[in-house]
């Protein structure tokens, strides 16, 4: 019986070649999109799932409360790791990671210089907590002592080749203590929220870790709970820990006891983040890698299903539309004694056969376009990912479901035909069938209109973020990564030499750049009773000018003044500190990590206010920022971590070349390395670029499939109305009259779709735009464009068919057979 079904289904496919092709092409594209998106989604979901006991591992996050506001951080004071493990019995183990983004690790192995961008410090418990396999070395020994490092397998191969790396030494630049390789571990999978090639024992960080610190944040702290522990129970014990450990330091630093401090609206709230959820749900300050986004994953899932549903609808519509022809077959079969079930099964088999054909083809398509998809989505999928058992079984399930979804309605509707009615030709013009089809077409086009409008907004927002004035000029700036290799005098002369080069316009030194992340720092205005926390940036006298930042009042740092204890702030900082006329005001800092003389009071004077500029992507609101003079650099007085050079657009190549040779003449051990600021800035929007590209591509595909269906439906309608067309032509209708008649109904459906999609899109886009701190306003014109585009495309599709139908001679149409 089954083979009989398949045989009949196959014959039907062949006989109605055009419909079969449209069905299969639509489903193939739909399934291919679905597979690609599922690859992407699967990957996003899979983050950190490779850690076996991951469901027991949590990261401790911190919500730092300030009067009237708060900020949440992925890093916490480094002493809590120990404290939590000791005080809370259900905490089995803890591990701290230290990671400082934006820096490169430069070192020598024997006489060869290297640079590594991916490195972290970790406690010795790392391999107990995380499921990263240690290939060489003893898990309980590898990170126990200062100056031990573990390399990943590929880093070991890169730096040591075939020779055994264990016991070999690495000499960091600017440091005398060599690091000893104590172990080699597996490479960190791509789907991990942290990543390193070199892991250094945390004790190598020096004395700063020995000092107890419960106030300033630096450590990514992970804890593993005993089995079946409710994380909320653990969280509830944190406030007591804070009182116990931090209150003393609060009193020392802020001069108030913790209760009073809290009463002022300040405080520290610690919370737990499940390891498995970090990638998709956590978006705190100081994340190690750009986090994913659950809403984007949902968005892509929705697109994938929409495309698949559009393709299924094509199938349903064509199948039921053809019921006129098939109805006769059903009628005859029923008079021959076939029951409804077997007729339904026959139609279902046809649908499943088509969907399986499409699945096989879609597989091929997916494998072929994988490299292009990788560029599009910024991922590195390989053929094996498509061949995984899990993936294959998912695809087969989806294929069967697609077949069922597409085939069920036609099977039910066709098999219900009553032979007598069919023979009398009554059901051929079944109004019910037509209204279901109309509903489905409306559904398809509502999705299409929605996607067109959404893509236009995604694109507009993207343009906006690209073109919005940032408050500084990122184009034409080259950042030299000097990593403090030059001392104060060398640095000074290097900068002067740079300025002498023909195409160099301005030069400025700093410790970090907009977009790279700044360190946190707090100041208290004299007379105020609360601190203002913001970001800190260390710059020289040339930097503010070099970046084309605008001074609102006062002056920027200058060689004509003694500016060691001067401060330049941005407008937001002035506002938050409540300073009407900031210039000349004195402020104090409690942070003593800048190279202060012990015992010195950190009294600064504000000398100028810079116009607010975006030092983070436009997702973030501009927050308080404090410029500190580079005489107080983290690296030592007058030493710059980076040097920014503004060059003219002429002859960039040769300017770069002369900068390079100038650098080499300084005889530094650090290689010449630079980045273009505009490119680096663009990287901040990587995820938006992905979203924009993916959404516009899949929008086009969705519309294409919907139009494919419309084309077939129009062809079908024309075929079905052949007689009517003939009659009308005999009655004097022109071709134009016929085209109008055939197109009008479809265009009505599209107009209804527009009416449905517009409010939905309006709402969804409004929601989406709230993700951005700075966004475009809601506008009407994308809706208008979307509506016209949908109408235009639909009209084009339908009128081609209608015109063909209108040209046909009436005597052919009216032949009585």
């Amino acid at each position, binding site marked *: 019986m089954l083979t009989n079904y398949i045989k009949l289904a196959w014959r039907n496919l062949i006989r109605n070649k055009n419909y079969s092709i449209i069905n299969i092409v639509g489903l193939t594209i739909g399934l291919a999109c679905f597979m690609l998106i599922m690859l992407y989604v699967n990957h996003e979901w899979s983050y950190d799932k490779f850690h076996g006991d991951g469901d027991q591992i949590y990261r401790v996050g911190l919500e730092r409360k300030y009067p009237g506001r708060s900020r949440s951080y992925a890093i916490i004071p480094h002493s809590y790791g120990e404290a939590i493990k000791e005080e809370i019995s259900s905490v089995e183990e803890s591990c701290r990671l230290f990671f400082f983004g934006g820096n490169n690790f430069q070192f020598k192995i024997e006489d060869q210089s290297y640079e590594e961008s991916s490195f972290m410090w970790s406690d010795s418990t790392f391999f107990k907590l995380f499921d990263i396999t240690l290939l060489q070395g003893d898990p309980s020994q590898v990170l126990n002592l200062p100056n031990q490092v573990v390399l990943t397998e590929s880093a070991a191969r890169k730096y040591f080749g075939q020779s055994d790396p264990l016991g070999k030494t690495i000499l960091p630049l600017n440091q005398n203590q060599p690091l000893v390789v104590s172990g080699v571990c597996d490479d960190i999978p791509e789907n991990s929220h942290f990543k390193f090639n070199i892991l250094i024992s945390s004790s190598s960080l020096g004395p700063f870790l020995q000092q107890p610190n419960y106030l300033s944040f630096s450590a990514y702290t992970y804890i593993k709970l005993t089995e079946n522990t409710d994380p909320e129970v653990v969280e509830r014990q944190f406030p007591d820990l804070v009182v116990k450990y931090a209150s003393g330091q609060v009193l020392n630093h802020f001069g108030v006891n913790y209760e009073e401090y809290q009463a002022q609206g300040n405080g520290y709230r610690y919370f737990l983040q499940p390891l498995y959820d970090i990638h998709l749900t956590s978006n705190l300050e100081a994340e190690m890698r750009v986090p994913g986004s659950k809403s984007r994953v949902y968005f892509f899932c929705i697109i994938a299903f929409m495309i698949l549903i559009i393709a299924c609808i094509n199938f349903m519509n064509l199948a039921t539309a053809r019921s006129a022809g098939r109805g006769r077959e059903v009628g005859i079969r029923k008079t021959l004694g076939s029951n409804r079930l077997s007729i339904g099964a026959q139609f279902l088999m046809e649908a499943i056969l088509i969907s399986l054909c499409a699945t096989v083809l879609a597989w091929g398509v997916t494998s072929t376009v994988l490299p292009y998809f990788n560029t599009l989505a910024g991922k590195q999928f390989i053929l094996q990912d498509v061949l995984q058992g899990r993936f294959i079984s998912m695809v087969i399930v989806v294929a069967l479901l697609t077949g069922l979804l597409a085939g069920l309605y036609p099977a039910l509707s066709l098999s219900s035909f009553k032979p007598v009615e069919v023979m009398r030709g*009554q059901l051929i*013009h079944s109004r019910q069938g037509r209204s279901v089809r109309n509903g489905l077409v409306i559904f398809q086009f509502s999705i299409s209109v929605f996607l067109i409008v959404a893509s236009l907004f995604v694109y507009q927002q993207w343009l906006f973020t690209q073109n919005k004035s940032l408050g500084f000029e990122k184009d034409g700036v080259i950042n030299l990564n000097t990593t403090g290799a030059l001392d104060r005098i060398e640095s000074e002369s290097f900068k002067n030499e740079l300025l002498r080069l023909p195409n160099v316009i301005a030069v400025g030194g700093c410790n970090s750049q907009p977009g790279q992340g700044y360190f946190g720092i707090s100041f208290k205005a004299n007379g105020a009773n609360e601190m203002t926390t913001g970001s800190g940036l260390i710059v020289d006298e040339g930097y503010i000018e070099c970046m084309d930042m605008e001074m609102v009042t006062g002056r920027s740092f200058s060689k004509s003044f003694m500016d060691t204890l001067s401060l330049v702030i941005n407008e937001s900082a002035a506002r938050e500190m409540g300073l009407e006329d900031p210039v000349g005001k004195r402020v104090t800092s409690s942070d003593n990590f800048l190279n202060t003389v012990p015992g010195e009071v950190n009294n600064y004077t504000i000398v100028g206010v810079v116009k607010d500029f975006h030092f983070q992507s436009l997702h973030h609101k501009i927050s308080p920022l404090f410029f500190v003079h580079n005489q107080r650099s983290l690296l030592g007085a007058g030493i710059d971590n980076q040097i920014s050079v503004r060059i003219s657009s002429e002859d960039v190549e040769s300017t770069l070349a002369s900068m390079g040779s100038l650098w080499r003449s300084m005889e530094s051990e650090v290689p010449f390395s630079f980045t273009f600021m505009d490119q680096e800035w663009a990287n901040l929007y990587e995820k938006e670029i992905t979203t924009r590209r993916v959404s516009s591509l899949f929008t086009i595909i969705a519309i294409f499939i919907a139009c494919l269906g419309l084309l077939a439906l129009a062809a079908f309608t024309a075929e079905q109305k052949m*007689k*009517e067309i*003939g*009659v*009308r032509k*005999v*009655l*004097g*209708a*022109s071709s134009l*009259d016929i085209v109008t008649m055939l197109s009008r109904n479809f265009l009505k459906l599209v107009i209804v779709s527009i009416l449905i999609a517009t409010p939905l899109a309006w709402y969804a886009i409004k929601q989406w735009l709230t993700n951005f701190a700075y966004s475009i306003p809601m506008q009407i014109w994308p809706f208008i464009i979307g509506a016209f585009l949908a109408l235009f495309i639909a009209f084009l599709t339908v009128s081609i068919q209608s015109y063909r139908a209108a040209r046909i*001679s*009436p*005597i052919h149409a*009216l032949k*009585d057979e």
Partner: protein
Amino acid sequence: MISLKNIERFYNQGLQKAWVLRDISIDIEEGSFVTIMGPSGSGKTTLLNIIGMLDQPNNGEYYFFDEPVHKFRERKRTELHKHYIGFIFQAYHLIDDLTVYENIETPLLYKNVPRSQRRAIVADILDRFNIVAKKDLFPHQLSGGQQQLVGVARAVVGKPKLLLADEPTGNLHSTQGKIIMDTLAELHKEGITIIQVTHDENNIKYGDRVIELWDGFIKNDLKTAEALSASQ
């Protein structure tokens, strides 16, 4: 009114020509009622379609009111057809989605008759054919005879000079058929020219001339009285 000279019509079937009409020459005067007879496949419908300008002969000349139709382009033919010719089909060919009223109104739409006039003309026709009560029904709610009556009404609503009827009673039983034929006779009396194709001997008597086709040739072309006596 109509003058056909050496009309030929064939279809190319592979390398061979399949002849449908050969050497047809007929003159039809305005106001006559012509019956075309002949066995199935003899070319009656094809001849009717050519006269109705829905089909073109391969050879020969066709003058309609002395105008050389065979030389006209399609657009011009369509115009002539639209203004001078009404069609009645064996299978009625009413438009399923339109009511009786709308079906009858359709030819007027294509002639760009203004709305108020349309309403008056259609009301007139409905009244005349006694189908006012049926005007809001759809075709499938009518009997075959009623449907054909609507078909006739639709064919004459535009006041054509020539009415072409291809086996108008072929699908009807005799009483219904008689009503249709009586209607045609009445129309004829009012001056409209009618060409009908029929198999039914009973329908011959309504016309004044009988043309018999045989395998694409004209076998006989007689006055009705002669034809009736010949067949007896």
